C-alpha cells in the first residue's frame, strides 16, 4: 500500500504532463537551432561581401547580399520568436496541468493519506515547487539545442584541424559530466531540505494569521517574530548554501575547458615546431575551443536549474502518486439487489486504528439503522464520535468490519456514489467565500437547481431564515472567507441548511448545534424530524436532550460500545448513560 515508486523516479512521473507539449518541446529547440545556424551564416555572408563584393567592385553583389542578410536577420527573428513562444506555451502549460493535477489529488485523496504531508506543504508544492519545474522546462527549450550545437560543431571543427589535440578536449567531456553530476547530487539534497524548510516557514505564516487572536491575547508576538526569524534564517542558510554549491558549476566547467586550451597551446608548440601544424590552425583551434567553452557555460547555467527542479518534481510527484483507494483490492461492485433487511445504514463490527497510532480508536461498533430512524451518538470527548464519522465518510480506512448503505459495502461503492448518499453537517461550521446561494447549492445537481422557495424552506427548517432575510442581498449576500462575516451560531445554521438541501439517504449531524440557544435548537430538531422521514439520521451530541428521542442511542466509551438502545432502556441498563444523564440534570437544577 506504500506509494514508493513515484518518489524514486520524479522525472519519469512528470512525462505524462510533458507529453501534450511534445510538439513545442521538439520544435522549440529545433527553431532555436535554425536561429543559431542563421547566426553563424550572417558573418559568413558578410565575409563573402568583403572577399567577393568589395574585391570585384561589384555594387550589385553588395546590395543583393545586403538584402539577403536582412532577410536572414528577419527569418532568424521569426524563428527565435517562435521558439520563445513555444517555450512559454509549454512551460506554463506543464505548470498549469501539474497544478490542476495536484489540486485534483487534494480533492480526491482521503485525509488518511494527505494529512502526513500537511496543508502548508501542499500549498508550497502547488505553487513554489511547480514554479521551479516550469522554469526548468522553459530554460531547457530555450537553451538546450543551441549550446550543444555550438559545442559539438566546435568539437568537429577542432577534430578536422588537429585530431591529436582535439582528443584532449574529448577527454574533458566525461570529467565535466562527472563534475556536473557530483554538484547536482550535492545540491539536490540541500534543495530538498530548503523546500522542507519553506514548508515550515509557510506553516508559521499560516498559523500566525489564523491564530492571530490567541497569539495577541497571550502577547506572544515577540516570541513569534523571534521564532519566525530563526526559521527564516535557517531557510536563508539552506538556500544560500545550495546556491553557492550550484554556482560552482559554471566556473569549474570553464576552468576545465580553459585548462584544455592551455594544454592544447602548450602541446601545439611542438607540433608547430616540427611543421605538423600551422600558426593559423592554432588560432582557429583556439577560437573553436573558446566557442566550446562558451557553449559549455551555457549548459552549466542550464544544469544549475535542474537540482532544484528535480527536488521539486520529487515533491510534486509524491502527491501525484498517491492512490485514492483506501483498500488494497476493491472488489467489483455487486449488481444492486437490495434485500429488505439491508435497507438503511449498517455498521458491522467496525474497528478503526489511525495510521500513526497503535491502539484502535474504534472497536467493534455495530448497529443497524432503518430509513426514518435516528441514531444518537453520545460519549465523552475523545471517545470516538468523530472517528465514527471519519470512517463513514471514508477519510480513514476501517481496519475491520464493514459499513453498508442499503446493502452496499463501503469497500465496494465508488467514492462519489457513496458520498452522494450522505449529507453531513461538520462539527466545525465552515462556509466558503462566495454568496450564500453558492454555499447552499453545494450538495445539489447543477442541472436541476432548486428554486428560491426550496432554499427558503431549508433555511426556515435550519432556523436561519430570520437572519438571512435581514441580510443585504438576502440569498445573494456575500460570504467572506470561511464564513467569517457570520457569527458562530449563524454559520452553524447555514451549514445545516446546506446539508438539508441535499437529497440523501443518510443525514449526519456532528455536534452541529452546539452554538445554538435552546429554543432555536428545539425548533431545529423538530424541523429535521419532519424533513428526514425517509432517511437515516445520525446525531452526534454531548446533550442527552438532543438525542433522547432517537430510536437508538449509541453510547461510546474510549472507542468501545458502552451501550445501544433507547433512552429508556439505556437509563435502566447503561451505567455510563445514567451518569451522563444525571450530570446534565444536575446542571439544569
Amino acid at each position, binding site marked *: 500500500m506504500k506509494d514508493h515508486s513515484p518518489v524514486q523516479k520524479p522525472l519519469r512521473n512528470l512525462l505524462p504532463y510533458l507529453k501534450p507539449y511534445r510538439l513545442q518541446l521538439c520544435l522549440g529547440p529545433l527553431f532555436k537551432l535554425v536561429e543559431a545556424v542563421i547566426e553563424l551564416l550572417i558573418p559568413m555572408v558578410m565575409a563573402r561581401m568583403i572577399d567577393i563584393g568589395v574585391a570585384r567592385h561589384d555594387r550589385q553583389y553588395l546590395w543583393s547580399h545586403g538584402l539577403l542578410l536582412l532577410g536572414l536577420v528577419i527569418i532568424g527573428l521569426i524563428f527565435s520568436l517562435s521558439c520563445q513562444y513555444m517555450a512559454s506555451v509549454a512551460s506554463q502549460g506543464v505548470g498549469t496541468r501539474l497544478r490542476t493535477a495536484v489540486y485534483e489529488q487534494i480533492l480526491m485523496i482521503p485525509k488518511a493519506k494527505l494529512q502526513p504531508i500537511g496543508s502548508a506543504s501542499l500549498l508550497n508544492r502547488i505553487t513554489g515547487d511547480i514554479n521551479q519545474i516550469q522554469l526548468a522546462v522553459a530554460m531547457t527549450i530555450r537553451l538546450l539545442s543551441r549550446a550543444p550545437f555550438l559545442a559539438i560543431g566546435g568539437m568537429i571543427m577542432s577534430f578536422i584541424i588537429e585530431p591529436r589535440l582535439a582528443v584532449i578536449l574529448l577527454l574533458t567531456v566525461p570529467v565535466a559530466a562527472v563534475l556536473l553530476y557530483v554538484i547536482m547530487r550535492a545540491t539536490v539534497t540541500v534543495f530538498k531540505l530548503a523546500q522542507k524548510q519553506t514548508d515550515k516557514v509557510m506553516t508559521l*505564516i499560516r498559523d500566525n494569521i489564523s491564530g492571530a487572536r490567541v497569539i495577541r491575547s497571550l502577547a506572544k508576538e515577540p516570541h513569534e517574530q523571534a521564532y519566525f526569524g530563526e526559521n527564516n534564517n535557517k531557510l536563508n542558510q539552506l538556500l544560500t548554501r545550495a546556491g553557492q554549491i550550484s554556482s560552482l558549476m559554471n566556473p569549474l566547467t570553464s576552468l576545465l575547458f580553459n585548462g584544455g586550451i592551455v594544454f592544447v597551446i602548450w602541446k601545439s608548440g611542438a607540433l608547430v615546431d616540427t611543421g605538423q601544424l600551422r600558426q593559423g590552425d592554432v588560432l582557429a583551434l583556439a577560437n573553436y575551443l573558446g566557442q566550446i567553452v562558451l557553449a559549455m557555460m551555457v549548459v552549466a547555467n542550464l544544469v544549475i536549474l535542474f537540482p532544484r527542479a528535480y527536488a521539486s518534481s520529487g515533491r510534486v510527484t509524491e502527491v501525484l502518486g498517491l492512490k485514492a483507494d483506501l483498500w488494497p483490492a476493491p472488489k467489483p461492485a455487486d449488481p444492486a439487489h437490495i434485500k429488505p433487511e439491508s435497507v438503511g445504514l449498517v455498521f458491522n463490527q467496525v474497528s478503526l486504528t489511525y495510521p500513526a497510532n497503535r491502539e484502535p480508536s474504534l472497536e467493534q461498533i455495530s448497529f443497524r439503522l432503518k430509513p426514518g430512524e435516528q441514531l444518537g451518538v453520545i460519549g465523552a470527548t475523545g471517545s470516538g464520535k468523530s472517528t465514527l464519522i471519519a470512517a463513514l465518510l471514508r477519510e480513514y480506512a476501517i481496519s475491520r468490519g464493514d459499513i453498508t448503505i442499503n446493502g452496499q459495502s463501503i469497500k465496494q461503492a465508488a467514492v462519489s456514489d457513496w458520498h452522494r448518499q450522505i449529507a453531513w453537517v461538520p462539527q466545525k461550521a465552515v462556509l466558503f467565500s462566495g454568496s450564500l446561494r453558492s454555499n447552499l447549492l453545494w450538495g445539489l445537481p447543477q442541472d436541476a437547481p432548486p428554486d428560491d422557495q426550496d432554499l427558503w424552506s431549508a433555511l426556515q427548517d435550519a432556523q436561519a431564515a430570520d437572519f438571512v432575510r435581514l441580510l443585504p442581498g438576502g440569498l445573494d449576500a456575500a460570504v467572506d472567507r470561511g464564513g467569517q462575516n457570520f457569527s458562530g451560531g449563524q454559520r452553524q445554521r447555514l451549514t445545516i441548511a446546506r446539508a438539508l438541501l441535499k437529497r440523501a439517504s443518510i443525514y449526519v449531524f456532528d455536534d452541529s448545534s452546539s452554538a445554538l440557544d435552546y429554543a432555536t435548537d428545539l425548533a431545529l430538531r423538530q424541523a429535521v424530524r419532519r424533513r428526514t422521514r425517509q432517511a437515516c439520521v445520525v446525531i452526534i451530541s454531548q446533550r442527552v436532550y438532543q438525542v433522547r428521542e432517537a430510536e437508538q442511542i449509541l453510547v461510546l466509551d474510549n472507542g468501545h460500545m458502552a451501550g445501544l438502545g433507547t433512552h429508556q432502556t439505556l437509563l435502566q441498563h447503561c451505567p455510563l448513560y445514567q451518569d451522563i444523564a444525571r450530570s446534565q440534570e444536575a446542571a439544569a437544577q
Partner: protein
Amino acid sequence: MRLTKSLKIHDTQDQNQLNSTDQRPIWRRLLPYILQQPGWLMAVAVTGIISSLSALLAPWLLGKAIDTLLGKGAVRWKPLAGLILPLALTYLASALFQWLMTASSVRLSNQVATSLRKASFDRLTRLPLSFLDQKGKGDLLSRLTTDLDAVNDGLNLLLNQLFSSLILLVGSLVMMFAASPWITILMLAIMPFNFLVTRFISSNSHHMFMEQANLAGRLNSYVDERVEQADLLRAFNQEEISRQDFHQLNEELYVVGQKAQFFSSLTNPGTRFVNNIAYVAVGLAATLNALAGRITIGQVSQLLNYTLQFAKPVNELSAVTTQLQNSLAGARRVFALMDQPEESDDASLPELKVSAGAVSFAEVRFSYRPDRPLITGLNLDIRPDASVAIVGPTGAGKTTLVNLLMRFYDPTGGQIFIDQQNITSVTRSSLRRSIGMVLQDSWLFAGSVRDNLAYGRPGASDAEIISAARAACADEFIRRLPQGYDTVLSDSGSNLSQGEKQLLTIARVMLLNPRLLILDEATSNIDTRTEILVQQAFLRLMEGRTSFIIAHRLSTIRNASLIIVMNQGSIVEQGTHDSLLQEKGLYYKLYESQFAGREA
C-alpha cells in the same frame, strides 16, 4: 462568476498600489535593503570586476602565446613558456573570482529576500485584526513566498550580470574610441533603439508580471481555503465543481502567465534583432564605402568586430532588465503589504495594572461595517470579582464585546475602562496578558502538546503543565496519544477531535493564571460530564477575579453574579438569574424554552 466576485481584494489601498506601474518607488525602497549589506555588495563588485578583467586578459595572453608559434622551427619557446603559466593562472583567477562573485551575490540576494520576509512577517503580527479577518491567508502567504522568491532570483541575476556587463561595455567602448571615435559615435547611435525596445518590453512585462502575481495570489487563496476542508468538499460531491472552479482560475493564470513569459522573453530576440540590423547596415555601409575607396578592408572588419562585441553586454543588460520586472512586481506586492497601517504604536504607554478588576463600558459605539451600526451607546459597570454572563441570540454582539475588550477591534466611540484605566491608554500587550481567553474556535500550532500548553508561560514546569492539563480534564487523553505530552500536533491539531482541542486551549489558559477571564463558548464541544469538572476548575481559578462567560446553555451560567442579556447590539436586560426571571423579559423567554424542552 462565482469566483471572480468573491475573491476580489477588498481594501482599496492595497489594490491601488498593486495597480500602479511606476517602478521608481519600488527601486527606492528596495535599495536600502541591498545597501544594508555593504560588505557583500562590495564583495560582488570587487570579485565581479576582477573576474571580468581576468576574463578579458585571458584572450589577450592567449593571442600573445599563439604569436610565439611562428611556424616550423620558428617556435619561440622561451616566451611561450613564460606565457603559459600566467595564462593558466589567469584562467584560474577568472574561475575563482567568478565563483566568489556568484557566491556573494547569492548570499546578498538571499539576505535581501530574508530581510524582506522578516519585515513583512513582523508587520503581519502588528496589523489590525480587521485586516487579517478580511484578507485571504493564501494571498498573504503568496507574497511572503512566491513573490519574494522572484525578488531573490531577479536580484541574483542582476548582481551576477551587472558588473561583468558594465566592465565589458566600458572596456569595448574605450577600445573602440581609441580605434575610431566616429565609429563609436555611430555605435552609440544604435543604443537608443535598443533602449526603446527594452523599455517597451520591460514596462509592459512589469504590468503582466504584476497581473500574474496577483492571480497567483488569488489561486493560492482559493486552494488555501479548501486544502483543510477537502473532506467537506468530498462529502458534498464538490470534487468536480471545485475542480472546474480551480481550472478556471488556473486557466486565467495560464493565459496571463504565458503572455507575461512570452512578452518578457522578447527582449533577447528583440535587442539581437536591432543589433543584427545594425550589423548589416554597418556592414553594407562600410563595404560600399570601401568600394568607393573611403575606408580599408581592415577597417571594415574592425568595425564589424566592434559592433558584435558591443552588442553582447547590451543584450545581457536588457535581458536582465526585463527579467527584473518579475522581481519588481513581487517586491511591489510585498511593499503594499508592508504599507498597511498597523495598530498604533503603544510602546510609550504605561502598562495596565489590574488590582480589583473592575470593568466599565462608557457610551461605547461600534460597527464592523460603517453602513451597518451594531453597538450604539453601550454602558456597563462591572464590579470587581464579578462573574458576568453574557447571553442572547446569536448575532447579538456577544463576541463583539470580547473583540472590544481585548482590543482586537477598537470602538468607534466611547471608552472602556479596567480599574479606572482607559484600555486605549495602556499597552495592548499588558491588557491582553491580564486577560485569559478561551474561544469557541480552538487554535493550536504545529508543535508538541507540551509546547502548546506552555505557550502562554514558556517557563512552566512539567508539574505545572500536568496539573493544568488535569484541571482541564485533558491529562487523560493526552496520555493516550502516541507520544503523550510530546506528541506533535500535525497541521495545527487536525489529528485531534474538536473537543480535545478545546480542552487543550482551556489547559493553556489554566496555566496562565490570568487576572480576568473570558470564556466565549469555551466548552461548547466538550461533553457535559467533563464540562462540569472543567467549570469547577474555572471557578476555583477565578475566585476573587472578574470573569466573562458567553454561553447559550443557560444552565451553565445561573450562578453568575451578573447576567447581561444582549439583543441586536444592545443590552436589553441585566441582573441576577432570579431577578431576570422575575422581569419576565427576553431572559425569561430564553430560559423558559429551555426549561420547557427539558420537561418534554
